[in-house]
């Protein structure tokens, strides 16, 4: 019995192996389960990236691929460079990365491109930088241009002197937003951009202090919900809500409420959902069928004002 088994089992094993090889070779061209890695620069605590995480999950489910999200937990860009290197070493089918700092990331990203991994850049960075890195395309919102667009709207509304509440001043993109706004207004950017840090009570009191010390301020730009909500509270407390032209970046349910109440004039929506969703779809189709749209895609700026706010309200913080 055992000797029979010993004779038969190699044949059985060989047959199974052959079957396996054949099935792999004969598999249809449409593979499933490709793996992509999205690397962002945001610290764990940054809530804005939640939308992108939701978007890549939806895109992954729809396209039948896995998308991993990686980031430096504390927001350190040098850590981010190392994460890009590790991701490239793990040989994914594609990489999606933000150009948070061109100099820090150029080495790791170019290495990934040179290995033959398709790279799409999103969010931070310019299309020129993206091209220099050898990426396929850039999907994002040009920061300076977004700030400039906001400034143009503010100028049309009569703003002459402004305050820019910057809660993440260590990121160069944030300064570009304020610079764009200032340039559109034709004002030199100096102490109007305040380093407000992230504690809501501190932000609120700093805005009150600034408005008190500069009473001729008639325009405010905040760079996200972290700076917008305490600024709303500050304007409430000083009784100037609705009095000062107020524009903000990004969306949240409180910002939506303020737009409806005519306290905030507009919110600049980068549409981060598209920054997460589109790269996954594009990379999947590239890997499977070799197709690639030409040119870059501007996911924003979309200006959310009172008359296009309904969907925003429904999904603020989740998909919008």
């Amino acid at each position, binding site marked *: 019995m055992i000797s029979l088994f010993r004779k038969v089992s190699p044949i059985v094993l060989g047959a199974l192996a052959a079957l396996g090889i054949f099935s792999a070779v004969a598999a249809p061209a449409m593979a499933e389960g490709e793996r992509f890695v999205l690397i962002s620069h945001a*610290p*764990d*605590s*940054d*809530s804005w990236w*939640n939308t992108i995480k*939701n978007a890549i999950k939806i895109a992954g489910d729809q396209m039948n691929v896995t998308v991993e999200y990686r980031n430096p937990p504390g927001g350190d860009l040098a850590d981010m460079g190392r994460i890009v290197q590790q991701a490239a070493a793990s040989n994914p089918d594609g990489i999606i990365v933000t150009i948070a700092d061109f100099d820090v990331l150029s080495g790791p990203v170019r290495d990934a491109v040179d290995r033959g991994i398709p790279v799409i850049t999103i969010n931070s960075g310019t299309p020129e930088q993206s091209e220099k890195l050898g990426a396929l395309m850039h999907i994002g919102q040009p920061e300076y241009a977004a700030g400039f667009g906001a400034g143009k709207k503010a100028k049309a509304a009569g703003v002459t002197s402004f305050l820019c509440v910057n809660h993440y*001043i260590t990121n160069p993109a944030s300064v570009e937003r304020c610079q764009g706004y200032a340039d559109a207004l034709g004002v030199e950017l100096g*102490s109007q951009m*305040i*380093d*407000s840090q*992230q*504690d*809501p*009570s*501190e932000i609120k*009191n*700093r805005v*009150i*202090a*600034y408005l*008190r*010390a500069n009473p001729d301020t008639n325009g405010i730009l905040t760079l996200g*919900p*972290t700076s917008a*909500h*305490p600024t709303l*509270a500050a304007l*409430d407390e*000083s*009784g*100037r*809500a*609705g*009095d000062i032209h107020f524009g903000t970046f990004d969306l*949240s*349910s*409180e910002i939506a409420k303020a737009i409806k109440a005519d306290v905030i004039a507009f919110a600049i929506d980068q549409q981060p959902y598209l920054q997460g969703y589109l790269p996954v779809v594009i990379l999947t189709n590239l890997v499977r069928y070799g197709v690639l749209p030409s040119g870059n895609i501007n996911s924003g700026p979309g200006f959310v004002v009172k008359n296009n706010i309904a969907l925003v309200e429904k999904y603020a*913080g*989740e998909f919008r």
Partner: protein
Amino acid sequence: MASDVKKAGAPAEDERVKEMSRFRKAMIRPELGAIAGAVLVFMFFLAIARDTGMFSPEGVMTWSTVSAQFIIIAVGACLLMIAGEFDLSVGSMIGFAGIVIAITSVTWGWPVWLSIFTAFALAMAIGALNGYLVIKTGLPSFIVTLAFLYILRGLTIFGAITATRKTIIGGVREAAEGDWLAPFFGGTIFTGLFQWLADIGLLETFSRGTRIGQPIVDGIPMLIVWAVGLIVFGHILLTRTKFGNWIYASGGDAQAARYAGVPVNRVKILMFMFTAFCATVFATSQVMEFGSAAADRGILKEFEAIISVVIGGALLTGGYGSVIGAALGALIFGVVQQGLFFAGVESSLFRVFLGIILLLAVILNTYIRRMITGER
């Protein structure tokens, strides 16, 4: 003779006793550095920012509120530091407590007073766990609480995203309407007094905008009330009770204190729980005031608390310090932060100022401490 014996046996002056003037005795105290610092800072800002509105009622409110925030966590950190331990998880505890309140009240629909109690209970349990681990393992509290800094921050972000798919949870203001406990943290008191002051003309009112006719300052925020209350409690506990002596003893030399019968373990665990309590007061006030909780609140606050305590004269290794000093250190912190805005100084320079003040304060405090304790 009798009179000669009396003269020889009872000298009028004992040369072993050092004479110290009463003024010097009153001045040389642990808080002296902080008092001098506060006076200097106020004089500095009076000189450069007197007419920018910094000392108007509205201006005073801005830096008082910011200072009150720092005072609340500084008192907890001070008592713990005097007992000889650090708590680096305070900032993460603030974020954690805030998210607990928001999730339980907004997402799960619990009444807000129950959410607040839950947050306090959880935080103090974690504080007790911190203390227990420090004592059981004998590891430096720096390490144990550093671990909890990461654990709590991770749980906060994970919990927020799992329960609500967002990391900023709003809607607490609506949930807290009609609640009996919420105004104790987020409300304002003495509104009647300020209204009266406005009516008799001593206080400005808004002349335009949405709050026209209302007094510029409408009340004292509960945050300030809590800060004052905690200072009084901490100071009396530390300087007037037996337990206060035990705190000093545990920090000065834990083993010697144990030999003297001080329940050092109990003292340290209670102080960790008190720090957690202070962090939760901070978090609850912020959540009630802003109506929302966020997973990134409280980052780096533990260091700001330790800085306030050190400016206030406490010794990093424990056994020496003062709650009044820590409160003054926190006040200096808040005034410098806000004052630089009023003075129109480039806002990023705030961090440079803070570092310089910290250095000067430590040098001054070391000198004062040597005078008090007589060490050389």
